[in-house]
């Protein structure tokens, strides 16, 4: 197994999960993942390959997300899709579709940095890697994640607002 294959086998699944959660579309995620790996192949050497891959993927997503029309289109389609699924599917599928839609809405309701930090952490990146990927100070990752998690849960559960973060150290 050569280096390229090893890289792909080791990181494709977590990268796809991260991108799918971030983008809400498997095809789009696959497209970005492929571009990420293509860029990795052009690198003579990667210091921290996991951090590098997720950082590149995050930047690619950011570039794409800046195209507002594309994003709006995505959200419109997601909304329509949920409506279709709700109308057509059995109860279990409807519940899953509703959960998925709620999760998507909540995730989109987070700030970009909070959203990315949360998704990167879910893929196992440590605070140093997250800080490097997002340009944060390492000491602020915990606060970012705390805010993101709280906000995400509140949005899904329909609880408005939230408590102030932290009570001081």
């Amino acid at each position, binding site marked *: 197994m050569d280096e390229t294959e090893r890289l*792909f*086998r080791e990181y494709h*699944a977590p990268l*796809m999960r991260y991108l799918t959660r971030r983008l809400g579309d498997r095809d789009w995620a696959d497209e970005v993942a492929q571009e990420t790996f293509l860029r990795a192949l052009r690198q003579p050497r990667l210091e921290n390959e996991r951090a590098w891959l997720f950082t590149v993927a995050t930047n690619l997503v950011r570039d794409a997300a800046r195209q507002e029309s594309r994003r709006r289109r995505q959200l419109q389609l997601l909304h329509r899709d949920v409506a279709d699924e709700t109308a057509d599917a059995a109860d279990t599928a409807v519940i899953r579709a509703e959960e*998925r839609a709620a999760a998507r809405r909540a995730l989109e309701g987070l700030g970009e940095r909070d959203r990315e930090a949360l998704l990167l952490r*879910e893929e196992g990146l440590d605070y140093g890697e997250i800080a490097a990927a997002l340009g944060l100070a390492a000491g602020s*990752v915990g*606060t970012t994640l705390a805010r993101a998690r709280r906000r995400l*849960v509140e949005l899904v559960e329909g609880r408005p607002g939230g408590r102030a973060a932290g009570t001081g150290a």
Partner: protein
Amino acid sequence: MKHLDEGTIHAWLDGQLSDDLAALVERHVADCAECGALVAEARGLVAGASRILSALDDVGGGIVPGSGSANGGSASGGGTTGGGSAGGGATAGAVPPRGRMRWVRPAGWLAAAGVLLAVGVQVVGRDSPPVRTEQATNLAAPRVVSVTPGSTMKAEGRASRKPVPKAATVVASEPAGGGTAAAVTAQPTDRGAAGRAAAYSALEQTSAAQPVCYGAPVAMQRAEARDMAATAATAATAATAARAEAPAPFALGLMLDTGGLVRVQDSVVGTWSPLPADSVLIRVRAVQRCRG
């Protein structure tokens, strides 16, 4: 030690604090009920956020705008496509068909009754009993439109993958197993080819002149169906004439009755009857923007 801030608690729960700091936090939490409560809450938030995010894994694809060229470019990446979308714990089997299909869902067709689109032609050899389309709701509207020989087979692959609701149908057949249905069978003879060309030509003229409008009043569409049938009969006659030994006259026409049954019109007597078992169908979809 002061009370813990939320960021520190999450960092601790994530195992991201140094050993020394983690030990301090642990001791403090053991002694401080308020921070203990915060830790318990933070544990819930960590678990809750993970649960919520896991719901996002069950998604399909196909909403990448303009992905035709984009995917093509990515695919050229060679080896990186091998894994496909295996990752992410997808449960694709539970997801309804998506991709470009979503653009042509039946509900969409009905809702868009005044604004249609389309493209696609399909030729289907038939050897089965009369055709009944799936739903009666759409049946009153005969759907036919353009037939373009050159585009016929090219369009088939794509069109057949989509859940195209009730494709349009033009029928050309011979009543009693008399060899070829001259207008459209794939008989590889010169005469057969000439017949097909003639039939296509006539049908094309018809459809160009009288495209059927989805969503138009039923009465109007029925009238158009009769017109179509008449012209289709002309096409069939032309095809038959191209054969040296033209056999029995063949019935040709088109109508979807209110019960959803496809009926053909006898070109001589003019009566409508169920589709013969050995008919050959040309299924057509076409694009059109309807008035109103």
